[in-house]
């Protein structure tokens, strides 16, 4: 198993080498000079040229790339062009905020999505099943912006229960986590439902029932555990969705996370900051999927890592 983990960690290397190259290339290709944008409307061409030089922007791509990768190998993500701040410091702040939001949303999604799917699959085409299917369709198709504002109007403006935005107390986390979780809840409920329906048709379920195992136990121990493998896979993939949805959720709820930081970095053509953000996101995503792969062995003991 340690070999498996090691292999997966080695797969990070091309990502860490590729992301900076890709971002440098795109930033070079799209119009918009970071130095000119930084100095603004009044700057002379000469000042822009001097700033470009001081930011190393006048160096060829290869030089910039090698310098970046050398620093990256030492764990240094550089300094933001525009803010002059260490990217490591900035990322430590925003990544924590996004992780907090993402984990809360994930927990919420699993806690709500899986039981809903199980209930739904227990009696297919019952009123409960239909209700779950309609509401999950709703959850999948509502835009995050709209849901978020609706929640703010109801729970902050009308009821006054929750703060409208910002980060600090657990109360601040409730609405953004719920908003972010909603599409994933729907996804998981539908996934769990179909996986459960599949499993419930299997022979060993019939055997379990036949030998008199109580209904709830059949569902939880025999069916759900086997149905969870595709669900966990989807959950791993959904993490990417969560990270993407976080940009909108963070905007609506004024959550100081990595999504908003990346958008800001793109508009300022601050590619050092942008690179740092994308690298951290990519590593997070890969780490989550590694955990997902490792968890398969728990759900299905036949799976081993050779």
């Amino acid at each position, binding site marked *: 198993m340690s070999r498996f983990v090691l292999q997966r960690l080695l797969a990070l290397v091309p990502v860490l080498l590729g992301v900076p190259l890709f971002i440098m290339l795109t930033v070079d290709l*799209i119009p918009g000079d970071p130095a000119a944008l930084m100095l603004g409307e009044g*700057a*002379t*061409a000469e*000042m822009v040229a001097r700033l470009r030089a001081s930011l190393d922007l006048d160096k060829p791509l290869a030089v910039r790339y090698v310098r970046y990768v050398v620093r990256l190998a030492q764990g240094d993500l550089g300094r933001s062009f525009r*803010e002059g*701040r260490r990217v490591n410091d900035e990322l430590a702040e925003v990544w924590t905020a996004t992780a907090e939001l993402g984990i809360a949303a994930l927990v919420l999604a699993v806690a709500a999505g899986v039981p809903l799917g199980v209930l739904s699959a227990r009696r297919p085409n019952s009123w409960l099943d239909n209700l779950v299917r309609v509401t999950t369709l709703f959850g999948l198709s509502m835009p995050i912006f709209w849901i978020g504002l609706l929640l*703010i109007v109801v729970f902050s403006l009308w009821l006054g229960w929750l703060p409208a935005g910002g980060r600090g107390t657990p109360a601040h986390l409730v609405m953004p986590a719920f908003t972010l979780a909603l599409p994933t809840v729907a996804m998981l409920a539908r996934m769990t439902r179909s996986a459960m329906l599949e499993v419930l048709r299997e022979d060993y379920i019939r055997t379990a029932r036949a030998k008199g195992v109580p209904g709830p136990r059949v569902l939880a121990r025999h069916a759900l555990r086997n149905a969870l493998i595709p669900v966990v896979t989807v959950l791993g993939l959904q993490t990417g969705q969560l990270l993407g949805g976080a940009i909108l959720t963070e905007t609506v709820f004024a959550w100081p996370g990595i999504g908003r930081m990346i958008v800001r970095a793109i*508009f300022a053509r601050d590619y050092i900051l942008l690179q740092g953000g994308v690298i951290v996101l990519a590593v997070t995503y890969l780490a989550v999927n590694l955990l997902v792969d490792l968890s398969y062995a728990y759900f299905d003991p036949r799976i081993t890592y050779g």
Partner: protein
Amino acid sequence: MACRWGTVLVAVVLLAGLTAPAARAQRRGGTLTIARPVDAVSLDPHFETTAPGAWIYQMILEPLVALGPDMKIKPVLATGYRVIDASRIRFTLRRGVRFHDGTPFNAQAVKFTFDRAFDPKAPARWASLAGPIKGAEVVDEFTVDITTREPYAPLLYSVAMLYAGIVSPAAVQKMGQEFSRAPVGTGPFKFQEWRTNDRITVVRNDDYWGPKPYLDRIVFRVIPEESARMIALRTGEVDMVLVPAPSQLAAFRRDSNFVVAEAQGQRVVFIGMNLTRSPLTDVRVRRALLMGTNRKAILDNVLEGAAAPADGILAPGVFGYAPMELDRRYPYDPAKARALLQEAGFRPGPDGVMVRDGMPLVLSLISARGRYLKDAEISEAWQAQMRQIGVRVELNFLEWGTVFTHVRAPQLDYHLFTLGWVTTTADADYSLLPMFRSNMAPPTGWNTWRYVNREFDRLVDQARVSVKAEEREALYRRAQEMIARDIMFIPFYTTKEIAVLRSYVKNFVPHPIEYNQGFAYIWLDK
């Protein structure tokens, strides 16, 4: 000298409760929470000149002199100044002032600040706005000369910019680049905490040399979403909102729990014309576009009272402003506009679009979406108005960084562009010279229309070196007269600086330059 220069009046509209003499005693203490859409980039005034940073550091760092809400120069860290000639001003410094870290304020600190901002190795953003400033020379411990490379009459205005805040030399040397995250100055508030994209907190400086502020603390929160920002104000989570949602202003005005405070802003938003592209090379066509534009309709329907009509490239309040009277010279008259186009050789085509030599009159426009208030909506409304006079406008909405690059390129491939411009120094030189002088075509300057007029060049050159205010005003009036004659842009609006506050927030003074300086002496009546 300052008084004669600042003869211009600005309509600062203060609503009930703000101007009335305080009925109750000012209270000390309390925390004021302000919501705004974006976080500061940096709190170092040399590198960050946009409002979200300036709102905060202007309470921490003070310049030698500043532009008050009446757009007149007032002393701050300098007690007085003397204009020696058009390239040198001597400032007498305030004594007994200390920075927040205990460092004494003196001529050395001023010199350190200017050396840092104008260091050729690391050009600061302020330096790009400040004109040909050379630096500061120490005369004695409390006297300093600010000098320029060439005669530059608006020098005092450049020194009065908030970006000229004097920094603590000891703190800069100790903190290096981290200074931009926790600035140290002499101001009425001290920096306390910055959580990126969430909040910045400043606390009262009890050792301030001037009148002590009332508030204990001011918290600037970031709430990007417009509706969420307004809801936070309604629920009382924040006491004040900057950059409010225009569509909700009417409702807040009717509600006695809130006060809508506003000042005439400085930014003019316009559609510019590229004079190097046919048929805009013909002044009759340019005038036709102007006369076919119903600017009032756009102002009323698109902007809903969130901005004031513009009449030129300068906002009233800028030194050298003269009304261009475009509404009188070129009133909205679609029939006359069509006639002007026909004079220029166009004939109505089959689908209503004018045609000349078999070519339909199609103009391409480049605009950002969301860079300026309602920029894209204005372009769309204008497109419909142009259709009425037989002009087809093709809209190209691009992201701001891309628009910026296109407009700044040596050659502009579009006929028209939506842009905004602030006369940052509050002196006409800052706009009329880089935007209209012949040698200022991009990439050198902002003569984005590529206007060439030698007579105009002479006027702005002369105005830059003269220290006589009346003479400069007369020169700028003539220069604006030429722009009104030659027409190369359609001005739409001048920004208003609007804030919505809860009615217990007292003594907020909206400032024409992005509400700056208005927060320090607020007190809370609750």
